[in-house]
């Protein structure tokens, strides 16, 4: 009995030690890794995507280490505020409201919202967003906020989801008339259901994505991110990454990524990596 208690206590204390030991001196990057092609997990559970590769490339160029941590989208900003996470990289739209609690980098992406409907529903963008329609969106995203502000007063019913795939599945199941989401993930979802889903049209919100850090950037991370992005754009790697990530199927990108990622992480050569990745997905 007593021996068992000692073992149990030791096990509990041991957990604590392991957790403390895991904390390495590097920047922790928080991302909701379920939003292809910006960030997702491969069939083998590896984290990839445009945001994550950009962060990895910046880290290589600016000489810091990163640890990518997957967390719920809603938790990333609280985690940055709490000092658990140093950088938020998860396709965050820059808004004034978020700007009150965190500090954004310069925008790195411009996006509009897409209205996705079922093929054969005959809905145009305008019809899909009429009064009485049920429109889905991921909670906390720009799409959800936009519907809330612009369509709900007109009588549209907004249904919010924890994740984007749930909304898409409900659309497929006929429980929704349309789903509003950023253009690129929308294209990705449509590609998964050929002949079943289509983009009825775009809502030009003109929102901009930024990386985010703690309010006032106390650790001085933003200058490094800006310098890194500038170098990537200058070398041409930036445009190659966009071409590699936005268009090809996820399976293709995953295979190429797995083949090439060592060029970025091992050889520490972002341009060569971007070239190799693009060449591989184009094969």
């Amino acid at each position: 009995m007593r021996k068992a208690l000692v073992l149990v206590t030791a096990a509990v204390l041991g957990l604590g030690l392991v957790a403390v030991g895991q904390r390495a001196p590097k920047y922790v990057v928080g991302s909701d890794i379920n939003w292809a092609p910006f960030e997702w997990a491969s069939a083998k559970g590896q984290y990839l995507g445009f945001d994550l590769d950009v962060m990895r490339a910046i880290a290589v160029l600016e000489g810091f280490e990163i640890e990518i941590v997957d967390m719920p989208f809603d938790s990333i900003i609280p985690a940055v505020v709490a000092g658990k996470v140093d950088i938020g990289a998860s396709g965050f739209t820059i808004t004034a409201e978020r700007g009150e609690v965190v500090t954004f980098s310069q925008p790195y992406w411009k996006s509009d919202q897409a209205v996705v409907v079922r093929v054969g529903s005959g809905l145009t963008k305008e019809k899909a967003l009429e009064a009485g329609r049920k429109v889905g969106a991921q909670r906390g995203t720009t799409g959800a906020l936009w519907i809330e502000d612009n369509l709900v007063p007109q009588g549209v019913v907004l249904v919010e989801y924890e994740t984007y795939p749930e909304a898409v599945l409900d659309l497929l199941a006929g429980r929704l008339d349309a789903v509003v989401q950023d253009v690129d993930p929308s294209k990705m979802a449509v590609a998964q259901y050929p002949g079943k889903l289509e983009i009825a049209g775009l809502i030009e919100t003109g929102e901009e994505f930024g990386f985010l850090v703690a309010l006032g950037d106390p650790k001085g991370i933003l200058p490094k991110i800006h310098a890194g992005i500038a170098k990537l754009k200058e070398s041409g790697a930036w445009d190659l990454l966009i071409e590699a990530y936005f268009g090809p199927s996820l399976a293709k990108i995953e295979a190429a990524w797995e083949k090439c990622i060592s060029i970025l992480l091992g050889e520490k050569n972002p341009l060569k990596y971007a070239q190799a990745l693009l060449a591989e997905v184009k094969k």
Partner: protein
Amino acid sequence: MFPSPSFPLTAETWLRVGPYIPVLLRGLGVNIQILLGLIALGFVVGILIALLEVYAPRPLAFVGSAYAWFFRGVPEIVLLFLFYFGLSRTFNIPVSPFLAAVLALGLRSSAYQAQIFRGALLSIPHGQMMAARALGLGPVRAIFHVILPQALRLSLAGWSNEFSSVLKDTTLAWGIGVVEVMRQAAYIRGRDFPLTLPIYLTVAFMFLVLTYAGNWAIGAVEKRLRVPGLETRR
């Protein structure tokens, strides 16, 4: 609506699940680690709280009751947030999501386990304590040698319920970023929407197996420790 063309449950989708099983099992391994940690923590703290409630003088016993009241009353997800964000922010203690999950779910479980142990302690006749004290055992020895061995046996049935319930609670750890089996399932769904139903059915099956195995193990322990006159009431 189920199964509809968007949730295909064909042989083809099931075949596509196969390669994902190792990833899911890796996630399930995290759930099991959380489970073991939280059960152990809940067990130790639960016994201490129950002993406080039953044997400690008024003010201390009240602390025990207040503790149990707090951890039973606050929703799990709120506890997870409190431990993950609150500890580091308020006390500047670095807490990993995994440790926060073990602490939050473990302390919550301790409140429930304390309730089980408390009931068992109270059901042991006062004469047992008297006889132990009369032999010259001090209060702590009497509790360890006489009261707890009986109370723990009586607790096993309630304890197996608690096991099944906290096993499922481990999936909540994703809320603070622990990549466990539900998150692994979400990854798969995120890159392959049509696999949604088969993947979650697979996860459900894994939990059913785990629950069965856990209850079987507890049953085996129960059988091993069974003493005539101290049968657990099922």
